[in-house]
Protein backbone atom coordinates (compact mmCIF):
# COMPACT_ATOMS: atom_id res chain seq x y z
CA UNK A 1 0.00 0.00 0.00
CA UNK A 2 2.61 2.56 1.02
CA UNK A 3 4.89 1.60 -1.82
CA UNK A 4 2.03 1.89 -4.32
CA UNK A 5 1.18 5.32 -2.95
CA UNK A 6 4.82 6.31 -3.15
CA UNK A 7 5.07 5.05 -6.71
CA UNK A 8 1.96 7.06 -7.61
CA UNK A 9 3.43 10.11 -5.96
CA UNK A 10 6.61 9.79 -8.03
CA UNK A 11 4.67 9.53 -11.27
CA UNK A 12 2.49 12.45 -10.18
CA UNK A 13 5.48 14.67 -9.49
CA UNK A 14 7.14 13.75 -12.78
CA UNK A 15 3.98 14.68 -14.67
CA UNK A 16 3.44 17.73 -12.48
CA UNK A 17 6.78 19.17 -13.57
CA UNK A 18 5.44 19.30 -17.12
CA UNK A 19 2.20 20.90 -15.90
CA UNK A 20 4.27 23.55 -14.17
CA UNK A 21 6.46 24.27 -17.18
CA UNK A 22 3.41 24.29 -19.45
CA UNK A 23 1.74 26.89 -17.23
CA UNK A 24 4.66 29.27 -16.66
CA UNK A 25 4.52 30.67 -20.20
CA UNK A 26 0.79 31.33 -19.95
CA UNK A 27 1.25 32.94 -16.55
CA UNK A 28 4.04 35.19 -17.85
CA UNK A 29 1.94 36.36 -20.80
CA UNK A 30 -1.08 36.99 -18.59
CA UNK A 31 1.01 38.83 -16.05
CA UNK A 32 2.71 41.20 -18.46
CA UNK A 33 0.03 41.72 -21.14
CA UNK A 34 -3.24 40.96 -19.31
CA UNK A 35 -3.89 38.69 -22.30
CA UNK A 36 -5.18 35.18 -21.66
CA UNK A 37 -3.98 33.14 -24.61
CA UNK A 38 -6.18 30.04 -24.60
CA UNK A 39 -4.26 28.80 -27.65
CA UNK A 40 -1.30 28.16 -25.31
CA UNK A 41 -1.93 24.42 -25.43
CA UNK A 42 -1.72 24.53 -29.21
CA UNK A 43 1.73 26.13 -28.91
CA UNK A 44 2.70 23.23 -26.64
CA UNK A 45 1.38 20.89 -29.32
CA UNK A 46 3.57 22.63 -31.93
CA UNK A 47 6.58 22.22 -29.65
CA UNK A 48 5.76 18.54 -29.47
CA UNK A 49 5.74 18.31 -33.26
CA UNK A 50 9.14 20.03 -33.49
CA UNK A 51 10.50 17.19 -31.38
CA UNK A 52 8.57 14.51 -33.30
CA UNK A 53 9.86 15.74 -36.65
CA UNK A 54 13.46 16.22 -35.59
CA UNK A 55 13.38 12.70 -34.22
CA UNK A 56 11.64 11.15 -37.24
CA UNK A 57 13.88 12.85 -39.79
CA UNK A 58 17.28 12.84 -38.12
CA UNK A 59 16.89 10.87 -34.89
CA UNK A 60 17.52 14.02 -32.86
CA UNK A 61 17.26 13.42 -29.14
CA UNK A 62 14.09 15.03 -27.68
CA UNK A 63 16.13 16.84 -25.03
CA UNK A 64 18.12 18.51 -27.80
CA UNK A 65 14.87 19.18 -29.67
CA UNK A 66 13.55 20.99 -26.60
CA UNK A 67 16.31 23.55 -27.04
CA UNK A 68 15.34 23.92 -30.71
CA UNK A 69 11.59 24.06 -30.04
CA UNK A 70 12.10 27.04 -27.71
CA UNK A 71 13.54 29.41 -30.37
CA UNK A 72 11.14 28.10 -33.04
CA UNK A 73 8.10 28.83 -30.90
CA UNK A 74 9.66 32.16 -29.87
CA UNK A 75 9.39 33.18 -33.53
CA UNK A 76 5.88 31.73 -33.86
CA UNK A 77 4.84 33.70 -30.77
CA UNK A 78 6.36 36.91 -32.13
CA UNK A 79 4.42 36.49 -35.38
CA UNK A 80 1.15 35.70 -33.58
CA UNK A 81 1.61 38.76 -31.40
CA UNK A 82 2.30 41.02 -34.37
CA UNK A 83 -0.68 39.70 -36.32
CA UNK A 84 -3.33 39.42 -33.65
CA UNK A 85 -2.59 40.27 -30.05
CA UNK A 86 -0.84 43.58 -30.65
CA UNK A 87 -4.19 45.12 -31.57
CA UNK A 88 -5.52 44.35 -28.11
CA UNK A 89 -2.99 46.54 -26.34
CA UNK A 90 -5.13 49.66 -26.73
CA UNK A 91 -8.17 47.93 -25.16
CA UNK A 92 -9.19 48.52 -21.54
CA UNK A 93 -8.08 45.64 -19.33
CA UNK A 94 -11.44 43.86 -18.95
CA UNK A 95 -12.18 44.07 -22.66
CA UNK A 96 -8.64 43.00 -23.42
CA UNK A 97 -8.92 39.78 -21.42
CA UNK A 98 -12.34 38.92 -22.85
CA UNK A 99 -11.32 39.60 -26.44
CA UNK A 100 -8.03 37.75 -26.01
CA UNK A 101 -9.93 34.63 -24.91
CA UNK A 102 -12.00 34.81 -28.09
CA UNK A 103 -8.98 35.35 -30.33
CA UNK A 104 -7.06 32.58 -28.61
CA UNK A 105 -10.03 30.30 -29.07
CA UNK A 106 -10.22 31.06 -32.81
CA UNK A 107 -6.45 30.62 -33.14
CA UNK A 108 -6.63 27.30 -31.30
CA UNK A 109 -9.11 25.99 -33.87
CA UNK A 110 -7.01 27.29 -36.77
CA UNK A 111 -3.69 25.93 -35.47
CA UNK A 112 -5.25 22.57 -34.64
CA UNK A 113 -6.83 22.29 -38.10
CA UNK A 114 -3.58 23.31 -39.80
CA UNK A 115 -1.78 20.63 -37.80
CA UNK A 116 -4.30 18.01 -38.93
CA UNK A 117 -3.90 19.11 -42.54
CA UNK A 118 -0.11 19.10 -42.33
CA UNK A 119 0.57 16.01 -40.26
CA UNK A 120 -2.68 14.04 -40.03
CA UNK A 121 -4.69 13.37 -36.91
CA UNK A 122 -2.64 10.34 -35.75
CA UNK A 123 -0.84 10.17 -32.45
CA UNK A 124 2.92 10.23 -32.79
CA UNK A 125 5.58 9.28 -30.31
CA UNK A 126 9.30 9.82 -29.89
CA UNK A 127 11.21 6.68 -28.93
CA UNK A 128 14.84 7.38 -28.08
CA UNK A 129 16.95 4.27 -27.30
CA UNK A 130 16.75 4.93 -23.54
CA UNK A 131 12.92 5.24 -23.61
CA UNK A 132 12.22 2.25 -21.38
CA UNK A 133 15.14 2.64 -18.97
CA UNK A 134 14.19 2.98 -15.33
CA UNK A 135 15.98 3.63 -12.09
CA UNK A 136 14.88 1.53 -9.12
CA UNK A 137 14.97 2.95 -5.61
CA UNK A 138 13.74 0.35 -3.16
CA UNK A 139 10.31 -0.59 -4.45
CA UNK A 140 9.86 2.62 -6.45
CA UNK A 141 10.52 2.75 -10.16
CA UNK A 142 11.57 6.05 -11.78
CA UNK A 143 11.64 6.27 -15.60
CA UNK A 144 14.88 8.03 -16.49
CA UNK A 145 13.52 10.02 -19.45
CA UNK A 146 10.78 11.53 -17.30
CA UNK A 147 13.26 12.36 -14.58
CA UNK A 148 15.39 14.06 -17.21
CA UNK A 149 12.36 16.04 -18.41
CA UNK A 150 11.68 17.22 -14.87
CA UNK A 151 15.33 18.20 -14.47
CA UNK A 152 15.39 20.16 -17.71
CA UNK A 153 12.09 21.86 -16.83
CA UNK A 154 13.62 22.96 -13.56
CA UNK A 155 16.76 24.27 -15.29
CA UNK A 156 14.74 26.23 -17.85
CA UNK A 157 12.63 27.79 -15.12
CA UNK A 158 15.76 28.71 -13.20
CA UNK A 159 17.06 30.42 -16.34
CA UNK A 160 13.82 32.34 -16.81
CA UNK A 161 13.90 33.38 -13.17
CA UNK A 162 17.44 34.71 -13.53
CA UNK A 163 16.47 36.48 -16.74
CA UNK A 164 13.50 38.20 -15.11
CA UNK A 165 15.35 39.24 -11.95
CA UNK A 166 18.92 39.89 -13.07
CA UNK A 167 18.71 41.50 -16.51
CA UNK A 168 17.49 44.92 -17.62
CA UNK A 169 15.13 43.43 -20.20
CA UNK A 170 13.67 41.06 -17.61
CA UNK A 171 13.27 43.86 -15.08
CA UNK A 172 11.42 45.89 -17.73
CA UNK A 173 9.02 42.97 -18.21
CA UNK A 174 8.36 42.74 -14.49
CA UNK A 175 7.86 46.50 -14.27
CA UNK A 176 5.30 46.31 -17.08
CA UNK A 177 3.51 43.52 -15.25
CA UNK A 178 3.44 45.49 -12.00
CA UNK A 179 2.33 48.83 -13.35
CA UNK A 180 1.80 49.54 -17.01
CA UNK A 181 1.53 53.31 -16.69
CA UNK A 182 4.48 53.48 -14.37
CA UNK A 183 6.51 51.50 -16.89
CA UNK A 184 5.61 53.97 -19.63
CA UNK A 185 6.55 56.89 -17.37
CA UNK A 186 10.04 55.58 -16.66
CA UNK A 187 10.60 55.14 -20.39
CA UNK A 188 10.14 51.42 -20.89
CA UNK A 189 9.01 50.78 -24.48
CA UNK A 190 6.04 48.64 -23.48
CA UNK A 191 5.23 47.62 -27.05
CA UNK A 192 8.59 45.85 -27.14
CA UNK A 193 8.08 44.49 -23.64
CA UNK A 194 4.75 42.99 -24.73
CA UNK A 195 6.32 41.41 -27.80
CA UNK A 196 9.17 39.93 -25.77
CA UNK A 197 6.89 38.59 -23.05
CA UNK A 198 4.53 36.97 -25.55
CA UNK A 199 7.37 35.42 -27.55
CA UNK A 200 9.09 34.21 -24.38
CA UNK A 201 5.84 32.69 -23.12
CA UNK A 202 5.43 30.90 -26.45
CA UNK A 203 9.04 29.68 -26.31
CA UNK A 204 8.35 28.17 -22.89
CA UNK A 205 5.33 26.40 -24.39
CA UNK A 206 7.64 25.07 -27.12
CA UNK A 207 10.11 23.64 -24.60
CA UNK A 208 7.24 22.13 -22.61
CA UNK A 209 5.83 20.54 -25.77
CA UNK A 210 9.13 18.92 -26.70
CA UNK A 211 9.40 17.53 -23.17
CA UNK A 212 5.81 16.28 -23.35
CA UNK A 213 6.85 14.24 -26.42
CA UNK A 214 9.38 12.39 -24.26
CA UNK A 215 6.68 10.63 -22.28
CA UNK A 216 3.35 11.26 -24.02
CA UNK A 217 1.97 10.89 -27.53
CA UNK A 218 1.65 14.04 -29.60
CA UNK A 219 -1.39 14.71 -31.80
CA UNK A 220 -3.13 17.84 -33.11
CA UNK A 221 -5.90 17.38 -30.53
CA UNK A 222 -3.81 17.65 -27.33
CA UNK A 223 -3.95 21.44 -27.15
CA UNK A 224 -7.14 21.88 -25.11
CA UNK A 225 -5.91 19.35 -22.55
CA UNK A 226 -2.72 21.32 -21.92
CA UNK A 227 -4.48 24.69 -21.93
CA UNK A 228 -6.84 23.42 -19.24
CA UNK A 229 -3.94 22.08 -17.15
CA UNK A 230 -2.13 25.39 -17.48
CA UNK A 231 -5.23 27.36 -16.44
CA UNK A 232 -5.76 25.13 -13.42
CA UNK A 233 -2.12 25.51 -12.41
CA UNK A 234 -2.04 29.30 -12.65
CA UNK A 235 -5.24 29.61 -10.66
CA UNK A 236 -3.83 27.29 -7.98
CA UNK A 237 -0.36 28.75 -7.92
CA UNK A 238 -0.89 32.44 -8.07
CA UNK A 239 0.77 34.60 -10.63
CA UNK A 240 4.03 36.38 -11.08
CA UNK A 241 6.00 33.86 -9.07
CA UNK A 242 7.61 31.36 -11.39
CA UNK A 243 8.49 28.87 -8.72
CA UNK A 244 5.02 29.23 -7.22
CA UNK A 245 3.57 28.22 -10.57
CA UNK A 246 5.99 25.32 -10.83
CA UNK A 247 5.10 24.11 -7.33
CA UNK A 248 1.40 24.32 -8.21
CA UNK A 249 2.14 22.16 -11.24
CA UNK A 250 3.81 19.55 -9.04
CA UNK A 251 0.88 19.75 -6.65
CA UNK A 252 -1.64 19.19 -9.45
CA UNK A 253 0.32 16.20 -10.73
CA UNK A 254 0.46 14.76 -7.22
CA UNK A 255 -3.26 15.39 -6.60
CA UNK A 256 -4.17 13.72 -9.88
CA UNK A 257 -2.07 10.64 -9.39
CA UNK A 258 -3.19 10.16 -5.78
CA UNK A 259 -6.87 10.61 -6.61
CA UNK A 260 -6.42 8.38 -9.65
CA UNK A 261 -5.20 5.72 -7.27
CA UNK A 262 -7.99 6.27 -4.72
CA UNK A 263 -10.97 6.87 -7.04
CA UNK A 264 -9.89 5.08 -10.17
CA UNK A 265 -8.02 6.48 -13.13
CA UNK A 266 -11.21 7.49 -14.91
CA UNK A 267 -11.73 10.36 -12.47
CA UNK A 268 -8.22 11.73 -12.12
CA UNK A 269 -8.91 14.44 -14.70
CA UNK A 270 -11.95 15.61 -12.75
CA UNK A 271 -9.98 16.29 -9.58
CA UNK A 272 -7.91 19.10 -11.03
CA UNK A 273 -11.01 20.78 -12.44
CA UNK A 274 -12.74 20.43 -9.05
CA UNK A 275 -9.77 22.03 -7.28
CA UNK A 276 -9.88 24.80 -9.84
CA UNK A 277 -13.58 25.51 -9.21
CA UNK A 278 -13.06 25.29 -5.47
CA UNK A 279 -10.31 27.92 -5.51
CA UNK A 280 -12.40 30.14 -7.77
CA UNK A 281 -15.47 29.85 -5.58
CA UNK A 282 -13.44 31.00 -2.58
CA UNK A 283 -11.69 33.74 -4.53
CA UNK A 284 -13.93 34.64 -7.50
CA UNK A 285 -11.20 36.78 -9.03
CA UNK A 286 -8.75 33.92 -8.75
CA UNK A 287 -5.50 33.83 -6.92
CA UNK A 288 -3.75 35.52 -9.81
CA UNK A 289 -5.35 38.93 -9.91
CA UNK A 290 -3.19 41.82 -10.93
CA UNK A 291 -3.58 44.32 -8.17
Amino acid sequence: MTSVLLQNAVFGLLLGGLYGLGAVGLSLVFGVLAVLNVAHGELIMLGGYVSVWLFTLWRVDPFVSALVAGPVLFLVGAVLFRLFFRRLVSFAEDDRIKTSILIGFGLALVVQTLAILAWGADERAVTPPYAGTVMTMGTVVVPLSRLGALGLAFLVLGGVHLFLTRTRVGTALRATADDEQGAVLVGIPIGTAYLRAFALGSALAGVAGALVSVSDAVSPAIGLHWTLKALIVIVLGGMGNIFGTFMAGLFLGLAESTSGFLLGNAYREVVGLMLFLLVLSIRPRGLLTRS
Partner: protein
Amino acid sequence: MTGRRAWLLIALGLGVLAALPLLSTGSVLTWGFQVLLYVALAQSWNVLGGFGGQVSLGHAAFFGLGAVVTRMMWLSGHPLGVALSAGMVAATVAGVLIGAPTLRLRGPYFAIGTLAVAEILRITVSNVFPEVSTLSAPALASYALAPRYLLALMAAALSTLVAWMLTQTRFGYGLAVVRDDEAVAEAVGVNAFRHKLAVFVLSSALAGLTGGVFGYYHVSFYPQFAFSPLWTFDALLITFFGGTGTVWGPPLAAAVYLLFREVLALRLVELHVLVFGILFVLVVLAFPGGLLAAWRALSAGRVRQTHRS
Protein backbone atom coordinates in the same frame (compact mmCIF):
# COMPACT_ATOMS: atom_id res chain seq x y z
CA MET B 1 -40.15 47.38 -43.24
CA THR B 2 -43.36 47.88 -41.30
CA GLY B 3 -44.34 45.49 -38.54
CA ARG B 4 -47.14 43.75 -40.39
CA ARG B 5 -45.08 43.12 -43.50
CA ALA B 6 -42.23 41.70 -41.43
CA TRP B 7 -44.61 39.29 -39.70
CA LEU B 8 -46.08 38.23 -43.02
CA LEU B 9 -42.62 37.53 -44.38
CA ILE B 10 -41.67 35.52 -41.30
CA ALA B 11 -44.89 33.51 -41.46
CA LEU B 12 -44.29 32.86 -45.15
CA GLY B 13 -40.68 31.77 -44.45
CA LEU B 14 -41.79 29.43 -41.69
CA GLY B 15 -44.48 28.00 -43.97
CA VAL B 16 -41.97 27.28 -46.72
CA LEU B 17 -39.56 25.71 -44.23
CA ALA B 18 -42.33 23.60 -42.73
CA ALA B 19 -43.36 22.43 -46.21
CA LEU B 20 -39.84 21.33 -47.13
CA PRO B 21 -40.37 17.67 -46.08
CA LEU B 22 -43.22 17.48 -48.63
CA LEU B 23 -41.00 18.73 -51.42
CA SER B 24 -37.78 16.89 -50.80
CA THR B 25 -36.22 14.05 -48.93
CA GLY B 26 -32.74 12.71 -48.35
CA SER B 27 -29.71 14.95 -48.49
CA VAL B 28 -31.50 18.30 -48.80
CA LEU B 29 -33.71 17.55 -45.84
CA THR B 30 -30.73 16.31 -43.82
CA TRP B 31 -28.91 19.53 -44.63
CA GLY B 32 -32.00 21.50 -43.64
CA PHE B 33 -32.13 19.62 -40.35
CA GLN B 34 -28.48 20.40 -39.67
CA VAL B 35 -28.97 24.10 -40.38
CA LEU B 36 -31.99 24.31 -38.09
CA LEU B 37 -30.21 22.39 -35.33
CA TYR B 38 -27.29 24.80 -35.53
CA VAL B 39 -29.62 27.80 -35.63
CA ALA B 40 -31.19 26.59 -32.39
CA LEU B 41 -27.79 25.83 -30.84
CA ALA B 42 -26.21 29.14 -31.83
CA GLN B 43 -29.29 31.13 -30.88
CA SER B 44 -29.39 29.49 -27.45
CA TRP B 45 -25.79 30.61 -26.92
CA ASN B 46 -26.54 34.04 -28.39
CA VAL B 47 -29.27 34.58 -25.79
CA LEU B 48 -26.64 34.26 -23.04
CA GLY B 49 -23.44 35.38 -24.75
CA GLY B 50 -24.82 37.98 -27.14
CA PHE B 51 -27.81 39.50 -25.35
CA GLY B 52 -26.54 38.77 -21.84
CA GLY B 53 -22.86 39.48 -22.57
CA GLN B 54 -21.76 36.42 -20.57
CA VAL B 55 -19.24 34.49 -22.67
CA SER B 56 -19.81 30.92 -21.54
CA LEU B 57 -17.52 28.17 -22.81
CA GLY B 58 -19.59 25.46 -21.14
CA HIS B 59 -22.60 25.46 -23.41
CA ALA B 60 -22.01 21.86 -24.51
CA ALA B 61 -22.91 20.69 -20.99
CA PHE B 62 -26.56 21.69 -21.42
CA PHE B 63 -26.78 20.47 -24.98
CA GLY B 64 -25.33 17.16 -23.82
CA LEU B 65 -27.68 16.85 -20.85
CA GLY B 66 -30.67 17.47 -23.07
CA ALA B 67 -29.43 14.95 -25.62
CA VAL B 68 -28.64 12.15 -23.16
CA VAL B 69 -31.71 12.55 -20.93
CA THR B 70 -34.11 12.82 -23.89
CA ARG B 71 -32.48 9.85 -25.57
CA MET B 72 -32.70 7.65 -22.47
CA MET B 73 -36.31 8.53 -21.71
CA TRP B 74 -37.34 8.03 -25.32
CA LEU B 75 -35.50 4.73 -25.75
CA SER B 76 -36.97 3.40 -22.51
CA GLY B 77 -40.45 3.81 -23.99
CA HIS B 78 -41.70 7.21 -22.86
CA PRO B 79 -43.57 9.38 -25.37
CA LEU B 80 -41.33 11.76 -27.28
CA GLY B 81 -42.96 14.84 -25.75
CA VAL B 82 -42.26 13.58 -22.24
CA ALA B 83 -38.68 12.69 -23.18
CA LEU B 84 -37.98 16.11 -24.71
CA SER B 85 -39.52 17.87 -21.70
CA ALA B 86 -37.41 15.76 -19.35
CA GLY B 87 -34.27 16.72 -21.26
CA MET B 88 -35.22 20.37 -21.11
CA VAL B 89 -36.00 20.18 -17.39
CA ALA B 90 -32.65 18.49 -16.71
CA ALA B 91 -30.81 21.24 -18.60
CA THR B 92 -32.84 23.92 -16.80
CA VAL B 93 -32.07 22.50 -13.35
CA ALA B 94 -28.40 22.19 -14.32
CA GLY B 95 -28.56 25.80 -15.51
CA VAL B 96 -29.58 26.94 -12.03
CA LEU B 97 -27.03 24.74 -10.27
CA ILE B 98 -24.15 25.72 -12.56
CA GLY B 99 -25.16 29.32 -13.26
CA ALA B 100 -25.53 30.43 -9.66
CA PRO B 101 -21.90 29.76 -8.66
CA THR B 102 -20.16 30.47 -11.99
CA LEU B 103 -21.90 33.81 -12.57
CA ARG B 104 -20.23 35.09 -9.42
CA LEU B 105 -16.86 34.64 -11.11
CA ARG B 106 -15.29 37.76 -12.53
CA GLY B 107 -13.65 38.54 -15.84
CA PRO B 108 -12.12 35.57 -17.61
CA TYR B 109 -12.98 33.18 -14.80
CA PHE B 110 -16.60 32.85 -15.84
CA ALA B 111 -15.52 31.64 -19.29
CA ILE B 112 -12.90 29.26 -17.91
CA GLY B 113 -15.09 28.13 -15.00
CA THR B 114 -17.95 27.14 -17.29
CA LEU B 115 -15.48 25.30 -19.52
CA ALA B 116 -14.21 23.41 -16.46
CA VAL B 117 -17.75 22.42 -15.42
CA ALA B 118 -18.55 21.19 -18.92
CA GLU B 119 -15.36 19.13 -19.02
CA ILE B 120 -16.15 17.60 -15.62
CA LEU B 121 -19.57 16.56 -16.95
CA ARG B 122 -18.12 15.23 -20.20
CA ILE B 123 -15.53 13.09 -18.42
CA THR B 124 -18.06 11.82 -15.90
CA VAL B 125 -20.56 10.91 -18.61
CA SER B 126 -17.89 9.11 -20.60
CA ASN B 127 -17.06 7.09 -17.46
CA VAL B 128 -20.62 6.28 -16.47
CA PHE B 129 -21.98 5.63 -19.99
CA PRO B 130 -19.04 4.32 -21.99
CA GLU B 131 -21.23 2.36 -24.42
CA VAL B 132 -22.39 3.70 -27.75
CA SER B 133 -26.15 4.40 -27.87
CA THR B 134 -27.75 2.86 -30.96
CA LEU B 135 -31.38 2.69 -32.00
CA SER B 136 -33.00 -0.74 -31.82
CA ALA B 137 -33.84 -2.56 -35.06
CA PRO B 138 -37.60 -1.75 -34.95
CA ALA B 139 -36.91 1.90 -34.13
CA LEU B 140 -34.47 1.99 -37.01
CA ALA B 141 -36.99 0.41 -39.39
CA SER B 142 -39.57 3.09 -38.63
CA TYR B 143 -37.03 5.94 -38.70
CA ALA B 144 -38.32 8.99 -40.55
CA LEU B 145 -36.47 12.23 -41.14
CA ALA B 146 -39.48 14.54 -41.52
CA PRO B 147 -40.57 14.61 -37.84
CA ARG B 148 -36.96 15.23 -36.77
CA TYR B 149 -36.74 18.06 -39.23
CA LEU B 150 -39.98 19.62 -37.97
CA LEU B 151 -38.78 19.35 -34.37
CA ALA B 152 -35.54 21.11 -35.30
CA LEU B 153 -37.59 23.80 -37.03
CA MET B 154 -39.62 24.21 -33.86
CA ALA B 155 -36.49 24.51 -31.68
CA ALA B 156 -34.91 27.00 -34.09
CA ALA B 157 -38.10 29.08 -34.25
CA LEU B 158 -38.54 29.02 -30.48
CA SER B 159 -34.99 30.10 -29.70
CA THR B 160 -35.15 32.83 -32.33
CA LEU B 161 -38.45 33.98 -30.83
CA VAL B 162 -36.81 34.14 -27.41
CA ALA B 163 -33.95 36.19 -28.87
CA TRP B 164 -36.45 38.54 -30.48
CA MET B 165 -38.38 38.86 -27.21
CA LEU B 166 -35.16 40.07 -25.58
CA THR B 167 -35.24 43.06 -27.93
CA GLN B 168 -38.82 43.89 -26.96
CA THR B 169 -39.36 43.21 -23.28
CA ARG B 170 -38.55 44.95 -20.04
CA PHE B 171 -36.41 41.99 -19.03
CA GLY B 172 -34.47 42.31 -22.29
CA TYR B 173 -33.81 46.01 -21.70
CA GLY B 174 -32.65 45.29 -18.16
CA LEU B 175 -30.34 42.62 -19.52
CA ALA B 176 -28.88 45.01 -22.07
CA VAL B 177 -28.00 47.46 -19.30
CA VAL B 178 -26.40 44.68 -17.25
CA ARG B 179 -24.37 43.62 -20.29
CA ASP B 180 -23.15 47.12 -21.02
CA ASP B 181 -22.42 48.26 -17.47
CA GLU B 182 -23.31 46.38 -14.31
CA ALA B 183 -22.67 49.36 -12.07
CA VAL B 184 -25.13 51.48 -14.05
CA ALA B 185 -27.64 48.62 -13.97
CA GLU B 186 -27.48 48.42 -10.19
CA ALA B 187 -27.72 52.20 -9.93
CA VAL B 188 -30.97 52.30 -11.91
CA GLY B 189 -32.40 49.43 -9.86
CA VAL B 190 -31.76 46.45 -12.14
CA ASN B 191 -30.59 43.42 -10.18
CA ALA B 192 -27.60 42.35 -12.28
CA PHE B 193 -27.12 38.90 -10.78
CA ARG B 194 -30.80 37.96 -11.10
CA HIS B 195 -30.89 39.04 -14.73
CA LYS B 196 -27.72 37.12 -15.52
CA LEU B 197 -28.95 33.98 -13.77
CA ALA B 198 -32.35 34.17 -15.47
CA VAL B 199 -30.80 34.45 -18.92
CA PHE B 200 -28.30 31.69 -18.10
CA VAL B 201 -31.17 29.35 -17.20
CA LEU B 202 -33.16 30.39 -20.27
CA SER B 203 -30.16 29.69 -22.48
CA SER B 204 -29.58 26.33 -20.77
CA ALA B 205 -33.20 25.29 -21.31
CA LEU B 206 -33.01 26.13 -25.03
CA ALA B 207 -29.70 24.27 -25.34
CA GLY B 208 -31.31 21.30 -23.57
CA LEU B 209 -34.19 21.30 -26.04
CA THR B 210 -31.76 21.48 -28.96
CA GLY B 211 -29.75 18.63 -27.47
CA GLY B 212 -32.98 16.65 -27.12
CA VAL B 213 -33.67 17.08 -30.84
CA PHE B 214 -30.14 15.87 -31.53
CA GLY B 215 -30.63 12.87 -29.23
CA TYR B 216 -33.85 12.00 -31.07
CA TYR B 217 -32.25 12.47 -34.48
CA HIS B 218 -29.00 10.57 -34.26
CA VAL B 219 -29.01 6.87 -35.11
CA SER B 220 -25.96 6.07 -33.01
CA PHE B 221 -23.60 8.17 -30.90
CA TYR B 222 -21.45 7.96 -27.80
CA PRO B 223 -23.13 9.90 -24.96
CA GLN B 224 -19.91 11.83 -24.32
CA PHE B 225 -19.97 13.12 -27.89
CA ALA B 226 -23.00 15.28 -27.06
CA PHE B 227 -20.84 16.93 -24.34
CA SER B 228 -17.91 17.62 -26.66
CA PRO B 229 -16.60 21.20 -26.45
CA LEU B 230 -17.08 21.30 -30.23
CA TRP B 231 -20.76 22.09 -29.67
CA THR B 232 -19.76 25.17 -27.70
CA PHE B 233 -17.18 26.16 -30.28
CA ASP B 234 -19.60 25.83 -33.19
CA ALA B 235 -22.19 27.93 -31.36
CA LEU B 236 -19.58 30.62 -30.70
CA LEU B 237 -18.24 30.65 -34.24
CA ILE B 238 -21.70 30.97 -35.74
CA THR B 239 -22.90 33.61 -33.30
CA PHE B 240 -19.83 35.81 -33.65
CA PHE B 241 -19.82 35.40 -37.38
CA GLY B 242 -23.46 36.42 -37.61
CA GLY B 243 -23.29 39.11 -34.97
CA THR B 244 -23.64 38.72 -31.21
CA GLY B 245 -26.81 40.10 -29.73
CA THR B 246 -28.63 40.24 -33.06
CA VAL B 247 -31.79 38.25 -33.81
CA TRP B 248 -31.12 37.36 -37.45
CA GLY B 249 -27.33 37.13 -37.46
CA PRO B 250 -26.97 33.61 -36.04
CA PRO B 251 -29.61 31.99 -38.33
CA LEU B 252 -27.95 33.58 -41.34
CA ALA B 253 -24.49 32.53 -40.19
CA ALA B 254 -25.65 28.97 -39.43
CA ALA B 255 -26.82 28.54 -43.01
CA VAL B 256 -23.55 29.96 -44.38
CA TYR B 257 -21.51 27.82 -41.95
CA LEU B 258 -23.20 24.58 -42.99
CA LEU B 259 -23.05 25.52 -46.65
CA PHE B 260 -19.29 25.98 -46.26
CA ARG B 261 -19.07 22.69 -44.40
CA GLU B 262 -20.99 20.88 -47.12
CA VAL B 263 -18.90 22.32 -49.96
CA LEU B 264 -15.53 22.01 -48.24
CA ALA B 265 -16.20 18.58 -46.78
CA LEU B 266 -16.06 17.17 -50.29
CA ARG B 267 -12.40 18.11 -50.44
CA LEU B 268 -11.08 17.88 -46.91
CA VAL B 269 -12.89 17.05 -43.74
CA GLU B 270 -11.96 19.96 -41.49
CA LEU B 271 -11.37 22.78 -43.94
CA HIS B 272 -14.52 24.63 -42.92
CA VAL B 273 -13.18 24.91 -39.37
CA LEU B 274 -10.03 26.53 -40.74
CA VAL B 275 -11.97 29.02 -42.86
CA PHE B 276 -14.36 29.86 -40.07
CA GLY B 277 -11.65 30.00 -37.42
CA ILE B 278 -9.83 32.66 -39.45
CA LEU B 279 -13.07 34.52 -40.20
CA PHE B 280 -13.93 34.37 -36.50
CA VAL B 281 -10.64 35.97 -35.45
CA LEU B 282 -11.01 38.65 -38.12
CA VAL B 283 -14.58 39.35 -37.05
CA VAL B 284 -13.58 39.63 -33.39
CA LEU B 285 -10.75 42.02 -34.26
CA ALA B 286 -12.29 44.07 -37.06
CA PHE B 287 -16.09 43.76 -36.96
CA PRO B 288 -17.19 43.18 -33.37
CA GLY B 289 -20.77 43.48 -34.68
CA GLY B 290 -20.47 40.49 -36.99
CA LEU B 291 -21.81 39.89 -40.49
CA LEU B 292 -25.00 41.90 -39.99
CA ALA B 293 -23.24 44.98 -38.64
CA ALA B 294 -20.65 44.85 -41.40
CA TRP B 295 -23.39 44.67 -43.99
CA ARG B 296 -25.35 47.47 -42.36
CA ALA B 297 -22.24 49.64 -42.19
CA LEU B 298 -21.58 49.01 -45.87
CA SER B 299 -25.14 49.71 -46.95
CA ALA B 300 -25.32 52.79 -44.72
CA GLY B 301 -22.18 54.03 -46.45
CA ARG B 302 -23.84 53.46 -49.79
CA VAL B 303 -26.96 55.34 -48.71
CA ARG B 304 -24.87 58.27 -47.55
CA GLN B 305 -23.08 58.34 -50.89
CA THR B 306 -26.32 58.39 -52.88
CA HIS B 307 -27.57 61.25 -50.71
CA ARG B 308 -24.46 63.23 -51.43
CA SER B 309 -24.62 62.79 -55.18
